[in-house]
């Protein structure tokens, strides 16, 4: 039986083409790899190769024919014996040519709500002893506790071992866990982000420290393309339980290349968890959760907070839920939503406003992705006014996202427009006065809140 040769699709977008030239004639014997014809697509002239052996019995579309639709039978080849019973002649083959249309079929399903069992912070029993600890120490303790608990956890990065951490966050880890688990790398972010991601794919649980997230731009390909997407692309086979952590956002007087908030960048990527804690208790509890998490986590710290002291409950194994915001201060007139260092500024602003008779609620998002929309909307229901305070640029910011959520899902609760108060939309300047002008601060947050009344 003859094999039908069909007009091939020679590019992802080709629908028709010109049969420019036949290089065989009827009666020719062809074998696999022989060029049968030249076909012009909109982009190029392509050679059309034989796949099966046989004799060309008839040419059905003559050379020079334009607009030959993909899938049109252009020639017949008679095979020698049984091999030619290939499925090329099957009817089924013709149908899926218009396959892309299938994409436009029914409406896309909605994401599965993961709200079935909202986890809460562990209860802190009355009388629990509190200790005062810096954020830096809390982060170190979180890593050390998880390393004691799970031998597959290791820490890798620049200056994390012998130097004890560029910002001393990994202090003491080398001494306790040794050089096989606390690993100094060369200055080579792209490389060690990839090595960490590969190790996680292989079954380890790496904590990759970036000296700052500014340098992680060298490595963002592995965070986004390798770590975040592989589970999906593998149909759920591949795991990547990795934590990328380090300081994020503006430090002090380090200029434009070292002062940037990456939360909105990573928060836009499906497949990533993005956490940006404010105080030491959250930093510890969430970093422990991040290390145990089966998904890749971007854990954004803040250099200016490293040395700040906070109260921390003395509880064994203090692990917090990912994806859960926290009300830092109750209020009834306006909600200030923030995260990371912005939370401290929001609390200060709330203090200023309280003196003016405005009761501000401060909501700390803690996790940026997945975002605790329910907490935002719930607070809005109560206060009917909302401001997002963010130490970062305004354009396409986390604030932009919160605004959209309030418009889409909280419109009826709004008594005033939702406003953003952020850094200025400029690269971070070096000069002290200009830097101060560029950064968000409590006074700016308070002033923005006042506009709503």
């Amino acid at each position: 039986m003859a094999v039908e040769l069909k007009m091939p699709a020679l590019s992802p977008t080709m629908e028709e083409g010109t049969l420019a030239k036949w290089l065989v004639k009827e009666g020719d014997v062809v074998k696999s790899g022989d060029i049968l014809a030249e076909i012009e697509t909109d982009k190029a002239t392509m050679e059309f190769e034989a796949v099966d052996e046989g004799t060309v019995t008839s040419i059905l579309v003559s050379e020079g024919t334009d607009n030959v639709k993909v899938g049109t039978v252009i020639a017949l080849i008679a095979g020698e014996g049984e091999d030619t019973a290939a499925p090329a002649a099957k009817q089924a083959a013709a149908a899926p040519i218009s396959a892309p249309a299938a994409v436009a079929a029914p409406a896309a399903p909605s994401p599965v709500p993961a709200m079935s069992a909202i986890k809460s912070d562990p209860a802190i029993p009355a009388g629990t002893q509190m200790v005062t600890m810096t954020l830096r120490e809390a982060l170190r303790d979180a890593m050390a506790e998880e390393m004691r608990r799970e031998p597959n956890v290791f820490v890798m990065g620049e200056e994390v071992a012998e130097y004890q951490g560029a910002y001393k966050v990994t202090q003491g880890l080398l001494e306790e866990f040794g050089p096989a688990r606390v690993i100094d790398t060369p200055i080579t972010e792209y490389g060690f982000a990839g090595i960490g991601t590969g190790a996680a794919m292989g079954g380890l649980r790496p904590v990759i420290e970036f000296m700052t997230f500014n340098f992680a731009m060298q490595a963002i390909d592995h965070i986004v393309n390798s770590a975040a997407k592989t589970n999906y692309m593998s149909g759920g086979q591949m795991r990547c339980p990795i934590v990328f952590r380090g300081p994020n956002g503006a430090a002090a007087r380090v200029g434009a290349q070292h002062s940037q908030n990456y939360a909105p960048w990573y928060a836009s990527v499906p497949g990533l968890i993005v956490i940006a804690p404010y105080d030491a208790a959250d930093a510890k509890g969430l970093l422990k959760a991040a290390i145990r998490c089966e998904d890749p986590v971007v854990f954004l710290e803040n250099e200016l907070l490293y040395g700040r002291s906070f109260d921390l409950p003395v509880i064994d194994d203090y692990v917090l839920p990912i994806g859960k915001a926290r009300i830092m201060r109750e209020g009834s007139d306006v909600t200030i939503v923030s995260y990371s260092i912005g939370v401290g500024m929001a609390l200060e602003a709330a203090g200023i406003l309280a003196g003016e008779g405005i009761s501000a609620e401060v909501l700390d998002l803690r996790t940026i992705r997945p975002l605790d929309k329910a907490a935002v909307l719930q607070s809005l229901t109560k206060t009917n006014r909302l401001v997002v305070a963010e130490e970062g640029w305004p354009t396409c910011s986390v604030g932009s996202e919160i605004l959209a959520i309030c418009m889409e899902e909280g419109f009826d609760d709004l008594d005033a427009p939702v406003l953003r108060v952020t850094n200025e939309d400029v690269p971070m300047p070096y000069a002290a006065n200009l830097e101060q002008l560029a950064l968000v601060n409590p006074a700016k947050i308070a002033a923005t809140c006042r506009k709503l009344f």
Partner: protein
Amino acid sequence: MKQIAASKTKDIILAKPPAKKKAVPTGSAIPALSGNSGPQNRERPEQPGSYRATLQEMLSFYREMLLIRRFEEKAGQLYGLGLIGGFCHLYIGQEAVAIGLQSALIPGKDSVITGYRDHGHMLAYGIDPNIIMAELTGRAAGISRGKGGSMHMFSTSHKFYGGHGIVGAQVSLGAGLAFKHKYAGDGGVCLAYFGDGASNQGQVYESFNMAELWKLPIIFVIENNQYAMGTSVNRASSEDQLYRRGESFRIPGIQVDGMDVLAVRGAAETALEWVRGGKGPILLEMKTYRYRGHSMSDPAKYRSRDEVQAMRENSDPIEQTKARLVEMGISEDEIKAIDKDIRAIVNEAADFAESSPEPDANELYTDILVEQY
């Protein structure tokens, strides 16, 4: 055995064995820096020999290479019929590389990672052609449930870690898999494939540095098929003898005739002995050739038809193996029976891939995150 001279000739593959010229570089061009022993004083792996395959092994090499060839031809056909979409990079011509190397690995212990031209490496690991083809057609039965496509396929049960679409990413990821082998002390080795094009990516050298620094158990394999899309090695590489690319990291390199499955397997034995011996990474440059364009939509106008034909006629890995089988006393009929068998497997894979249903719409939102938050 065949060797490829380490000269800057324009010969891509030498059809005849060249004079016994050592492919291993002497490194004499650059004097040793103080404090370091110069390259010429370092331990080097032996120049690999041609693998002495038993008849049974030779038959499986033939069979497996033929499976890749016919599978890829069929994939090309299905692409032409619109059943496979997007990018589709065929492995035709390079079969001896995957078969020669992976036949030397211990499945379940050693890991493999590659770029987007990945169908052959999966078939070489014995992964079911049906579910590979079904992935190419984007069906629910595909190995990635239709969500990965040609470039993104994985089989963790085989320790096959993809299937990566970003040129060079698999080299760092592979070093990470090797890091895991070392960390866990499981005795495994990672085989990380990349192309001549990827060999110019920066992260490759970041990974070389750390792999040697930490003596990671990894075999870096450059599948030098001569063209990075449309750019020939000579137009893209200041050092076009790619096996030397590990030199400044003290990673020894060996150039291998990647069209000869026995030469490839011989090199695999040498490399595995080196790496399993705790001596750190090794680099194999496989001189090979792809007969088809870079992807299905590449008209391949950057090389002459004669060049491709010459390669097919003089160096085809499958024809070479067939000739050896005949020499070993296998009859034409027996070979034809294998061919028929392989065609049946591939036709069945195509049938399966065409007739399987597309993924359920609900799959859109599965496998994004493992846990619920």
